[in-house]
């Protein structure tokens, strides 16, 4: 009877007591290995962080220019009053603040020739890109991808003209983008599977992609060019043109404000000068009067007095003739007589008075 040789799984073979050097590691060797590791220094974690940037300079520029236009427009609305197509300063005394937007912000990032000519008229430059040299992309987590897509969606929303968005809508939009990408790639894969040649291939081919895109959206991938030209580039150009026009309008207002401020300052200076001149004139008059008084005070005083009295007399004469009234003429005559009497006896009054007083005094003494 023949015995069947059986090998049991997990059977422990009886080992001989003599260990070969391959089967054990001596403690001495471990110690040496430890020393080697210590000499190398502490093990550092490998840095696998890759910085991923949303670097569509054209879209970024468009959004920045839109922001700048909004700022300028709000300043124009604050400091001016729009009447028809032209703006007028609300308050000419108020200085409009200067804005500093560097011209690089509105620079033309796209060469004019690139998108004016049809694609087949533009000669292909031999670069690593046009040759299709393979390039590896950094490995990203799904969360990171969703985060990047969310940012991209926010940029697209701003580019389209939305100024605000609800969080739920952005999440939904990100989900929709992810869903589209997944379904497009699944379709792309299905076209690979339909072709026997491509079935086992993993490299990217153009034709199945076009077929997948057409079946998903109903349009060709060449429409992407039209989108980029008419939506992205045209929008960029429109926004830059609008920014330039608003900036010109703001410059005009600022110049107007500066000129009005200068004019106002000149007027103030003139007024100040005028005030100073008037004050000097007033002082001169005072000085002149003081000088006259000093030179001929007595003569002027007598003259002025005689003039005043003469005027009064003329007025009285004129008044009597003009009025022609009996009572007034009588009064005037009596006043005239009194005045003439006063004038005639002005010098001799005191003496006569003194004389009468002295005669009276004499009479009193005599009595």
């Amino acid at each position, binding site marked *: 009877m023949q015995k069947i040789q059986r090998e049991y799984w997990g059977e422990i073979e009886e080992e001989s007591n003599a260990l070969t050097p391959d089967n054990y590691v001596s403690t001495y060797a471990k110690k040496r290995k430890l020393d080697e590791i210590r000499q190398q220094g502490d093990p550092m974690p490998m840095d696998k962080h*890759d910085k991923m940037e949303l670097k*569509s300079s*054209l879209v970024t520029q468009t959004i920045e220019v839109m922001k700048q236009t909004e700022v300028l427009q709000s300043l124009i609305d604050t400091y001016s009053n729009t009447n028809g197509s032209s703006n007028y300063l609300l308050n000419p005394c108020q200085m409009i603040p200067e804005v500093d937007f560097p011209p690089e912000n509105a620079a033309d990032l796209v060469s004019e020739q*690139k998108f004016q000519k*049809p*694609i*087949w008229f533009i000669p*292909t430059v031999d670069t690593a*890109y046009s040759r*299709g*040299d*393979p*390039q590896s*992309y950094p490995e*990203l987590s799904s969360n990171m*991808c969703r985060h*990047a*897509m969310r940012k*991209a969606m926010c*940029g*697209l929303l701003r580019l*389209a003209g*939305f100024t*605000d968005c*609800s969080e*739920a*809508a*952005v999440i*939904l*939009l990100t989900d929709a983008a992810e869903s*589209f*990408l*997944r379904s*497009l*790639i*699944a379709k*792309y*894969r299905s076209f690979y599977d339909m072709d026997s*040649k*491509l079935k086992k291939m*993993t*490299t*990217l*081919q*153009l*034709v199945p*992609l*076009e077929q997948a*895109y*057409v079946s998903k959206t*109903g*349009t*060709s*991938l*060449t429409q*992407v*060019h039209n*989108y*980029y030209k*008419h939506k992205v580039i045209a929008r960029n150009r429109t926004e830059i043109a609008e920014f330039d026009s608003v900036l010109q309008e703001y410059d005009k207002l600022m110049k107007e404000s500066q000129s009005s401020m200068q004019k106002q300052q000149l007027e103030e200076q003139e007024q100040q000068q005028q005030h100073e001149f008037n004050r000097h004139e007033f002082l001169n008059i005072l000085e002149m009067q003081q000088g006259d008084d000093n030179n001929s005070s007595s003569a002027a005083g007598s003259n002025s007095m005689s003039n005043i009295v003469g005027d009064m007399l003329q007025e009285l004469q004129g008044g009597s003739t003009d009025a022609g009234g009996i009572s007034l003429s009588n009064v005037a005559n009596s006043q005239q007589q009194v005045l003439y009497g006063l004038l005639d006896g002005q010098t001799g009054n005191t003496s006569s008075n003194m004389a009468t007083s002295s005669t009276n005094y004499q009479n009193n003494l005599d009595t």
Partner: protein
Amino acid sequence: MVGSNFGIIYHPNAGGSSGQVNPSSGAASSVGGAGSFNAVGDRAAPASHLSDFLLQLEDYTPLMPDAVTAHYLNMGGFHSDDRRIVRLISIATQKFMSDIIDDSLQHSKVRTHMQNSATPGGSKAKDRKFTLTMEDLQPALADYGINVRKMHYSQ
């Protein structure tokens, strides 16, 4: 405009193609798979246009990073080493989403216009600000075949 003539729509069911015919299939064959595109039928012109377009794609910077597209391509079982096709998918996705957003904006404009016309002394068209809401986004997504269903608890 020259650019608007570029987009020639390829329909798998339709045999011919509209637009200018470019018989140069050399450029088409330079791109992987374009030869088989010619074999499908009389579609040499779109294939060559597409391959010409693919070579020029370096200047088309997508908003969605290529690394993200490459991630989804890897998940779909592809080896994403061809930058040109990765970029083409990126821009195509951007275009698709941009179309949805434009439709949402139109919905939002109509909605705000209705609200402003209902209230006397509504804001001017210049001062209008548009906020994307679910109300505007859902019908736009539905137009593009993406149906949104709310959970029972949120209805």
